[in-house]
């Protein structure tokens, strides 16, 4: 329920983002009971490295405050599409925030935008789109996998954004979007996006619109660009976006003192340097930010294009 707008305190039914540490962040649905693997309803207790958490105890807590557990504590954070992307259950490979950010900007999404998305996948991008186009826009999202489409619809509803989205089980490459001149933007994350291009054109408004196709493989990109040009799309732009994170540390480095020559232990003017001669060392603290040892090298290529307005003969 807390995806629709910001709240100050946790209520039953909310999704809370429980932050233990940077590697341990979880999305928890606040309910008294939860179904276990055998299908029985049991008290909702969330096990963590710092101890067990009775989830219903979260109700009434202020978002952003500390949650005490047996061996430590965590923070209860208010959900956002960005935090959801980091914690959602993966049913497919998902889009992460660096790519999502570019998609939102380049598709020119804003409150009131009408968007078509295929496939829904795990709903990572969907949540970000819904946030950006609310309260007057609408998202039509499609997936050819029946269970995924249904799970996504359930999630949208549980998150309080069901009114802004229509989730359908449909193969848009074969059957189209079943939409005519309604969309400001179309987003495709499909194995064969080029097959959906003519249907995307039909779904877009006659006054024009934007399209984006996300593909891991360059062959898919080439075929999609070909199809986009054939169907009258212009301003084609293919790019990839990577985010590099820095490991921020205070490092201590020793510094040789070169202002004086090393002391010479011998008294008889022997010019050989003393074995004990040493440069004086002083430690110095430096602020460093070095890239993480591994970073994502490739997610997918993003191809953007514009559908210009339809011209009529009498202008």
């Amino acid at each position, binding site marked *: 329920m807390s995806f629709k707008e910001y709240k100050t305190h946790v209520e039953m039914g909310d999704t809370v983002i429980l932050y233990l540490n940077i590697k341990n962040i979880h999305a928890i649905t606040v309910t008294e009971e939860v179904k276990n693997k055998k299908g029985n309803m049991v008290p909702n207790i969330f096990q963590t490295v710092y101890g067990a958490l009775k989830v219903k105890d979260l109700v009434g807590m202020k978002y952003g*405050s500390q949650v005490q557990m047996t061996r430590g504590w965590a923070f209860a954070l208010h959900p956002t*599409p960005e935090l959801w992307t980091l914690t959602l259950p993966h049913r497919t490979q998902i889009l992460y925030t660096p790519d999502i*950010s570019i998609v939102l900007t380049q598709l020119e999404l804003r*409150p009131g935008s009408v968007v078509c998305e295929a496939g829904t996948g795990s709903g990572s991008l969907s949540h970000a789109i819904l*946030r950006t186009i609310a309260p007057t826009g609408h998202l039509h999202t499609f997936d050819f996998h029946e269970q995924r489409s249904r799970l996504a619809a359930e999630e949208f509803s549980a998150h309080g954004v069901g009114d802004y989205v229509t989730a359908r089980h449909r193969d848009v490459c074969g059957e189209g979007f079943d939409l005519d001149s309604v969309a400001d933007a179309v987003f495709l994350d499909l194995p064969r996006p080029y097959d959906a291009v003519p249907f995307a054109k039909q779904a877009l408004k006659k006054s024009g619109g934007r399209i984006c196709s996300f593909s891991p493989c360059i062959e898919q*990109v080439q075929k999609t660009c070909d199809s986009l040009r054939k169907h009258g799309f212009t301003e084609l732009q293919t790019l990839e976006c990577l985010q590099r994170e820095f490991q921020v540390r205070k490092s201590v480095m020793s510094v040789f003192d070169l202002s004086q020559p090393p002391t010479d232990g011998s008294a008889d003017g022997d010019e050989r340097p003393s074995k004990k001669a040493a440069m004086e060392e002083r430690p110095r603290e430096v602020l460093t930010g070095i890239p993480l040892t591994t970073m994502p090298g490739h997610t997918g290529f993003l191809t953007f294009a514009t559908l210009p307005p339809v011209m009529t003969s009498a202008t």
Partner: protein
Amino acid sequence: MREDGPAICDGKNYIIIKGSFMKLAKLKTQKQCQLGRASVDVAGLLGHPVGTQFRLHSGGGKQRLMRPEPVEHTEDLADAIAADESAADNRNLLANQTSQAMTKERIMEMREQGATGKEIVTTIVDNSTNLRVDSLSQLLTACSVRPGGRYLVLESGCLAVTVAAVLERLGGHGHLVHLFQGGTPQRHAVDAINFTSDQLACLSCLDLRTLMTHHPADPTASAPAYTRTRCEDSELALNMLSSKEMDGLLLCCRQHPVNLLRYLLRFLAVSRPFAVFCPYKEPLLECYFAMKAEGCIMLKVTETWLRNYQVLPERTHPEINMSGGGGYILSGFKVDRSLNRAPVTD
């Protein structure tokens, strides 16, 4: 006649695209529209649908005004290259580029709801700020900017690009306090977009000095505010900030951010994000430790890297790397540690 969508009008702002050249211009019938070396007769553009593509014909007259003619089928330069088999030869490709038949011009209105961040940055900015559109995109998601939210943006040196981008994402719901230091706030990007008065009502400007001292703003200050007087704006902004419950804090300024961040964090509600843009990494490393000392979590310093590709049959390859000059972003969340004085460990 068109079915829907706006027509090109006299006196409005438009983005004009000629090949890879993009320009922001206000179209006026009394004036020509200058596109590089070409001067275009504005009268020939008016009345046509937004997004129309025009072909330029050399006109007569002393001024050598070019006459635009709307074309039915839109073509990219790339399309023409792809279609032309002889373009596989380098020499022919060069010749085609200079031929008059290849020159196309397209006009796209900055829609009434506002142009995108991408267009603002590439047209107005034109390399005069160090904030790229990909960094701007990341700032907006790092702060989870949403309609209905209340945001505090301190910006200088970016021609109000960040302010305009956040205002666009608010879409008339919520509020944005634009904090500035001395003089008058920059407003280039906000002015360029034809925001409605409802959308502009979401924006108030406040001098940092007024915030710190609570001395009222100078009523004789030169530039008027958008929908209110400068005094009314200040009062509204001060009221909004007094609750110290802002939903997001965005910093994008020329000055070293660390003092500003330490001071402005108090206006942010708990469980809400902040994001700081800086063209240099080192100031953000300082900010990282300063925010860690304040007990903030999920602190991250990142840089975004964009690479464009040319995609053509048999000629697909990356274009120039844009890895330099994109700037860096520090983001994090403010939390409440008052329950438990446990030390900051991670």
